[in-house]
């Protein structure tokens, strides 16, 4: 199940293809993309998919695919699967990938293993998948064919497997009215746009209850501004009403992937760490040298954030003046 983005194939779909290849063990891999008839799937998509081991790209064309329609996508996949009789159906572990695969699983009355990082074919198939947002792994057997799974984002490396350009075959899936009932009919633009978005920020500076109060975030905002970054916070902070939920980093908040994550007065609960596993570097500022976050951080400053953070801001300004 391929998700496209402007100009090509979504990186997470290429990661899903890498896991699909380990499952296929040399058998052919075919892909499904959906499009409205007015649109075309660019030649670049078939070329990219070919480079990642896909022999044939099946393009389902239907007017409903002009906007996201999860049940319609699932039904197109079910129709294609009836024709191809695949050993497995694999999607990316995105919100949409997990949703569409769950619809396929419901329609075929089969189990679905969501967010896998490894898979081996067999009867049953054996997978390793994420639990607790990745704080824990589960090895599980998946009974029934085809094997349905999604691939956890950023934990499997996309790899090229030159197979030439994928052949492209178009088909028009038969979709009932009920299949087309649920679809995006409107788009509300984000009215708070303007600042750096947490999910895309190169630098995230965050704090937890250690900030002491909503006003305590002033020094966190100051440092984030100096670095052109975004402010994050822990779940305890949003539960206390100090910051909006959109600032929350964690399993049930935003998953971030900055170059550096500066976590000030954050203890490192699993709920929080599940949201910042994607950070390239973690710097913890904490009074407690035994805080759990120090087991996940690359660097640490032991001290009170109320003293350390303003000192870092001052030092930064000084460094820029010279």
């Amino acid at each position, binding site marked *: 199940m391929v998700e496209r983005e402007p100009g090509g194939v979504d990186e997470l779909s290429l990661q899903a293809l890498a896991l699909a290849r380990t499952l296929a063990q040399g058998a052919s891999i075919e892909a499904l993309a959906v499009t409205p008839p007015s649109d075309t799937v660019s030649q670049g998509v078939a070329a990219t998919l070919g480079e990642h081991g896909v022999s044939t790209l099946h393009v389902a064309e239907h007017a409903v695919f002009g906007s996201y329609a999860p049940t319609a996508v699932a039904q197109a996949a079910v129709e294609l699967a009836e024709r191809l009789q695949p050993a497995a159906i694999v999607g990316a572990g995105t*919100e949409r990938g997990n*949703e569409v695969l*769950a*619809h396929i*699983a*419901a*329609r075929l009355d*089969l*189990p*679905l293993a*969501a*967010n896998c990082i490894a898979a081996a074919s067999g009867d049953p198939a054996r997978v390793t998948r994420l*639990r*607790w*947002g990745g*704080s*824990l792994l*589960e*090895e*599980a*057997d*998946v*009974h*029934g064919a085809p094997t349905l799974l999604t691939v956890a984002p950023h934990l499997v490396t996309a790899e090229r497997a030159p197979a030439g350009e994928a052949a492209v075959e178009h088909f028009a899936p038969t979709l009932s009215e009920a299949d087309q*009932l*649920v679809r*995006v*009919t409107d*788009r*509300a*633009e*984000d009215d708070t746009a303007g600042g750096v*978005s947490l*999910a895309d920020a190169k630098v995230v500076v965050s704090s937890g209850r250690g900030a002491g109060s909503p006003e305590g975030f002033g020094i966190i905002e100051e440092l984030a501004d100096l*670095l052109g970054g975004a402010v994050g916070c822990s779940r305890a902070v949003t539960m206390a009403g100090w910051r909006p939920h959109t600032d929350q980093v964690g399993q*049930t*908040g935003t998953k971030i992937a900055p*170059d*550096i994550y500066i976590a000030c007065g954050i*203890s*490192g*609960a699993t*709920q929080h760490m599940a949201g910042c596993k994607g950070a390239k*570097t973690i*710097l*913890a500022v904490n009074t407690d040298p035994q*805080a759990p976050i120090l*087991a996940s951080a*690359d*660097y*640490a*400053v*032991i*001290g009170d954030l109320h*003293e350390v953070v303003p*000192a*870092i801001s001052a*030092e*930064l300004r000084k*460094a820029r003046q010279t």
Partner: protein
Amino acid sequence: MNVLVCVKRVPMTGGKIVLTADEQAIATQHLGFTISPHEECGVEEVVRIVEQHGGESVVLTLGPPEAEEQLRDAMALGMDRAIHLVIGDDEDWDAQATATAILDAIEAEHAAGVDFDLIFFGNESADSGGYQVGIRVAHALERPIATGLKGVAVEAGRVRCEQEVPGGRDVFDLPLPAVVTVKEGLNFPRYPSVPGRMRAQKKPVTSSSPTAAPARLEKVRLVSPPGDRKEAEILGHGPDAAPKVVELLQRIGVA
């Protein structure tokens, strides 16, 4: 209108997850339990909908006897009554078995004259994270479902659903009866009042013990992720560490 919300009892994991010796579960003897976070917002939303539109709010869980605690918590927030599908302490039902048991409970309600206009689930549970129970239930009931919602508004026999996507929100507009799955951030759940807690003790809980079908997504064992523990390099103590931090920021190329 009648609204059902399905919740799951999960441990509050804190700083480090410790497994039992048989690698089948999390060691929970020192942990508290809670309603899985997305579903806490589901409970709050259902209470608000029924406050506004009238009708009955019902909370359902499939879980061990102790999960009655989470049902009472939900009723303390304003849910009218509860359905408890009681399973054994060590049982870990897969999504298909869970969905089947929930469908049977919904069918039993229907037979007793109660039909739900709207059914809420969390987008995914905190522990097993399967992303599918709500979708399976909706499919079996032949009802539309929208998932991962941060906005739900009921109006004139329809439900407007908002899903957060990069740069904005995608909107789905579903006819009732429908199913929705929601995410934390949908609302700011209220804190239960003392009178609310007292009332919750007297609200009805209907219990039954469903039989598990064999798991088709069958857990073999749980393992801690590799490379979990590393030693953080201490840059210094207190404000004196600031120059070292700036050096690091410059090295990374963000200063």
